[in-house]
C-alpha cells in the first residue's frame, strides 16, 4: 500500500508508465535493488507442502535474476515450529525467512521473534514499485499477516503487518462430476443437501461419500470446525467462555459422525494426506477441505481423477463460512540477511511469480492471478475460488497461543472419541469443557 502511494506521488514514474518505458527502468532499478545483496545466501525454513514444492522450483530463477542464493530447510509442517522457535530465540539465528502456519503468528509476535513489515515496505531501496499489496487476496493478507487487532488476530484498530500470505488457503467442495452426472445428482449447496446426499452416495456411487480428516488431535478438530462455522457455531463466545458444546457444536459433530459412517473406511485414522489420497484415488465422491487440492487433482502421479472433478462453494449452513488458514512468510528478528529475505518474499509475491507458482501446482495468492484470463481458462476452478473467498471466515478458529493445546489435547481427543463411537457427541464435547476452561483460565482469558 505504501508503495502505491509512493508510485502515485512520483510524477516521473507515472509518466514513464504512460509512455510504456516503465519496464526497462524498473528492471534497472531492480538490478540496483538486488546488487547490494548479490552473493548472500538466504536460509529459509519451509514445509513439505504442495505449495512449497512448487516454490522450490522457482528458486533457481530467483538466484539467476538476483545473485542471491537460497538454501531451504524443509520439515514436516507441524514439526517446523519447534525448530523455528529454537532458531529464532538465539541471539543470531540461522533462518532469514520462515514459513509459518497462521496459528503461530500471534505467538511469534508476542515473543518478539518476527519483524514488522512496514519498515521494509517503506524502504524505497528495497520495495519494488510494482509490488501491489492491494492485489493480495485481502482475507489472506488479514488472516496471515495481521497481529494486534481485535481479539489479537483480526483486522481493526491496533493491527500491524508481520507477514505475507504464501500458501494461504480456504475450503472448497470438490466432487466427482462423472459420478454425480451418472446418478443424476446436483452438487450440494447447503448442509441439508449434504445430509441427504451422504447415504445416497454411499449406497449408489460404489465408493465413500465424503472424505475427511479424522486422526486424533489437530486433524479431527479441523474437520469438525469445517462444519461448525457454516452451521453458525463458534468455539468461544465473545468473553472467551467455551460454547462449543451447545446445540450447534453437537449438530456439527453428529454430522461429522455421519461423514465417517458414509465415507471411505478408516476416516478416524486419516491425516490430511490420507484424506486427500482417498479422493484422488477414487475412494470418495466428495472432498470438503482446503483448496490445496487443486494442484494434486491435476498431478497424474497422484491422481486418478483428473478431468472428472468439479468444484462448488463450501455448502451453506445458516451462513457461508469457509476456512481461513494456511501458510505465510515472515522475517525473523534475528535474521542475518533480513533485507535480502524481504526481497525474496517480495519476488515470490510478484504477479509473474504468483502465476508461475500456481502453474506448478501451488496456490494463488494474488487477485490478478485469479482473474488472469489465461489462468482461468487453464484452471476454471479459480471462478469458484474467487466466489468462495467472499465467505472466508477470519474468525474460523481462535488464533491464540492456547489454541494448539485445546486443538490437540482437549477437542482433538473428544472429537476422536465421538467419531470412533466411544462417546456420543454431546457427552464427548461436554466432557472436554472443564479442560478447555482450565486452559483458558491458565492463559488469563477467564477468571479462575
Amino acid at each position, binding site marked *: 500500500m505504501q508503495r502505491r502511494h509512493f508510485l502515485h506521488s512520483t510524477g516521473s514514474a507515472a509518466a514513464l508508465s504512460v509512455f510504456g518505458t516503465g519496464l526497462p527502468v524498473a528492471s534497472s532499478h531492480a538490478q540496483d535493488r538486488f546488487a547490494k545483496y548479490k552473493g548472500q545466501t538466504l536460509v529459509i525454513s519451509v514445509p513439505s507442502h504442495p505449495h512449497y514444492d512448487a516454490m522450490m522450483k522457482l528458486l533457481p530463477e530467483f538466484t539467476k535474476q538476483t545473485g542471491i542464493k537460497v538454501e531451504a530447510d524443509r520439515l514436516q509442517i507441524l514439526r517446523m515450529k519447534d525448530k523455528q522457535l529454537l532458531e*529464532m530465540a538465539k541471539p543470531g539465528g540461522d533462518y532469514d525467512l520462515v514459513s509459518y502456519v497462521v496459528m503461530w503468528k500471534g*505467538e511469534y509476535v508476542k515473543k518478539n521473534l518476527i519483524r514488522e513489515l512496514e519498515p521494509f515496505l517503506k524502504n524505497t531501496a528495497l520495495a519494488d514499485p510494482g509490488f501491489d499489496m492491494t492485489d493480495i487476496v485481502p482475507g489472506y493478507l488479514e488472516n496471515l499477516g495481521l497481529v494486534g487487532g481485535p481479539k489479537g488476530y483480526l483486522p481493526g484498530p491496533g493491527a500491524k503487518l508481520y507477514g505475507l500470505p504464501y500458501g494461504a488457503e480456504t475450503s472448497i467442495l470438490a466432487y466427482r462430476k462423472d459420478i454425480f452426472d451418472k446418478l443424476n445428482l446436483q452438487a450440494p449447496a447447503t448442509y441439508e443437501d449434504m445430509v441427504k446426499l451422504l447415504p445416497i452416495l454411499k449406497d449408489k456411487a460404489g465408493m465413500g461419500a465424503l472424505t475427511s480428516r479424522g486422526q486424533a488431535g489437530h486433524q479431527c478438530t479441523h474437520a469438525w470446525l469445517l462444519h461448525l462455522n457454516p452451521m453458525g457455531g463458534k468455539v468461544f463466545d465473545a468473553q472467551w467462555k467455551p460454547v462449543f458444546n451447545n446445540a450447534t457444536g453437537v449438530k456439527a459433530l453428529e454430522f461429522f459422525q455421519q461423514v465417517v459412517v458414509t465415507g471411505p*473406511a478408516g476416516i478416524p*485414522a486419516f491425516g490430511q494426506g490420507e484424506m486427500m489420497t482417498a479422493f484422488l484415488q477414487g475412494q470418495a465422491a466428495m472432498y470438503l477441505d482446503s483448496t490445496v487440492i487443486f494442484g494434486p487433482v491435476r498431478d497424474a502421479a497422484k491422481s486418478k481423477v483428473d478431468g472428472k472433478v468439479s468444484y462448488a462453494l463450501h455448502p451453506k449452513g445458516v451462513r457461508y463460512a469457509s476456512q481461513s488458514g494456511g501458510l505465510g512468510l515472515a522475517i525473523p528478528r534475528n535474521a542475518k540477511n533480513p533485507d535480502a529475505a524481504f526481497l525474496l518474499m517480495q519476488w515470490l509475491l510478484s504477479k509473474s511469480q504468483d502465476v508461475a507458482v500456481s502453474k506448478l501446482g501451488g496456490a494463488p495468492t494474488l487477485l490478478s492471478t485469479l482473474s488472469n484470463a489465461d489462468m482461468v481458462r487453464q484452471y476454471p476452478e479459480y471462478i469458484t475460488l474467487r466466489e468462495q473467498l467472499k465467505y472466508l471466515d477470519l474468525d474460523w478458529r481462535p488464533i491464540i497461543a492456547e489454541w494448539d493445546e485445546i486443538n490437540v489435547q482437549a477437542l482433538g481427543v473428544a472429537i476422536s472419541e465421538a467419531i*470412533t463411537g466411544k462417546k456420543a457427541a454431546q457427552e464427548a464435547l461436554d466432557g472436554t469443557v472443564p479442560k478447555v476452561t482450565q486452559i483458558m483460565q491458565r492463559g488469563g482469558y477467564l477468571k479462575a
Partner: protein
Amino acid sequence: MKTKPWVPAVYLGPAVLVMALACLYPVLSAVQLGFFNWSMGTPWSNAQWVGLETFQRVLHEPSVWRSLKTTLLFAAIVVSIEMALGIALALALEGQVRGMAFFRTLFILPMMIAPIAVGLTWRYLFDTQFGLLNALLGALGLEPVAWLAQESSAFIAIIVADIWQWTPFVFIMMIAALANVDRSVLEAARVDGANWWQITFLVKLPMVMHIIAITLLMRLIDAFRVLEVIYILTFGGPGEATEILSLYIYKTAFVGQQLGAAAAISVLLLVVVFGLSWAALRLSNPFREKH
C-alpha cells in the same frame, strides 16, 4: 606393593565426574524446569517460579494417569513378547545350522531402520484403503479393517510394530550370551541324562540370567521412551487409546508449549522407570554378584 587408596580415585575420578555430569545434568534440569513457567522462544530470565504448582496440577490430571496406564500395559505386553520371541529365536539359531549367517542378519535388520521409517512402513501396511494387510484380506474375500481407526486394533498395531522392531535386539543379546555358555557344563548335563528341555531351562538359561536381566532392563526403559513410531502411526489416537506417556510429554511440551508441565510428567516417568528397573535388577543383579 600395596596400592594407595587414592590411586583408583585419580584414575576413575575424571570418568565418573563426566558420566555423573552427563547423566545428572539433564535430569536435574528437567526437575528444575518443573518448578518454572517457561515458554520456548523466550529468554530463561522471563521464566516464572511457580514452585510445586505444576507438579500438583499434572498429578491431578486424569489424562496423565490414563496415559501412564496405557504405557504400563504397552510396556508389559511388548517386553514380555519380545523377550520370549527373542530368546526362542536365539535358541533356535544358536547352533551351526546351514544358512545361519543369513538368518541372523535378516533378523536384526528391523532394529537398524530409523523409527520414523518404521512408523511410516507400518502406517502403509495398516492403511485401510491401500494397505497390504487389507489387500490380503481382500484376496481372501474379507472386508477391509480400519486398523488404525479403532481403539483396540490401533493398540494392537503399535504393539506389533514395536515387537517387529525390537525383538531383534533381544535376539542379538541372547545369541551373544548363549555363545559364551561353557560347553563343558552342557556336556556334563547331557552325560547326566538331561533332555533338551532340562538343558535349556535348568542349565543354559540360568547361566545367562544376568544377560536376560540386563536385556529386560534395557527393553523396559526403551518401551517407556518409544515415541516416533506411535507419533507416525496413530498420533496417540483414536481418542487417547495409544497415547503413551512419552507422546503425552511431547504434546505437552511442543504442542501445548507447557514445558514445565512436560518436565513434571517426565519426572513422574523417571520415577516409574526407576522403580521397574530396580525390580528387574532384583531378578538378577550382575553388578552386585560380581562382588
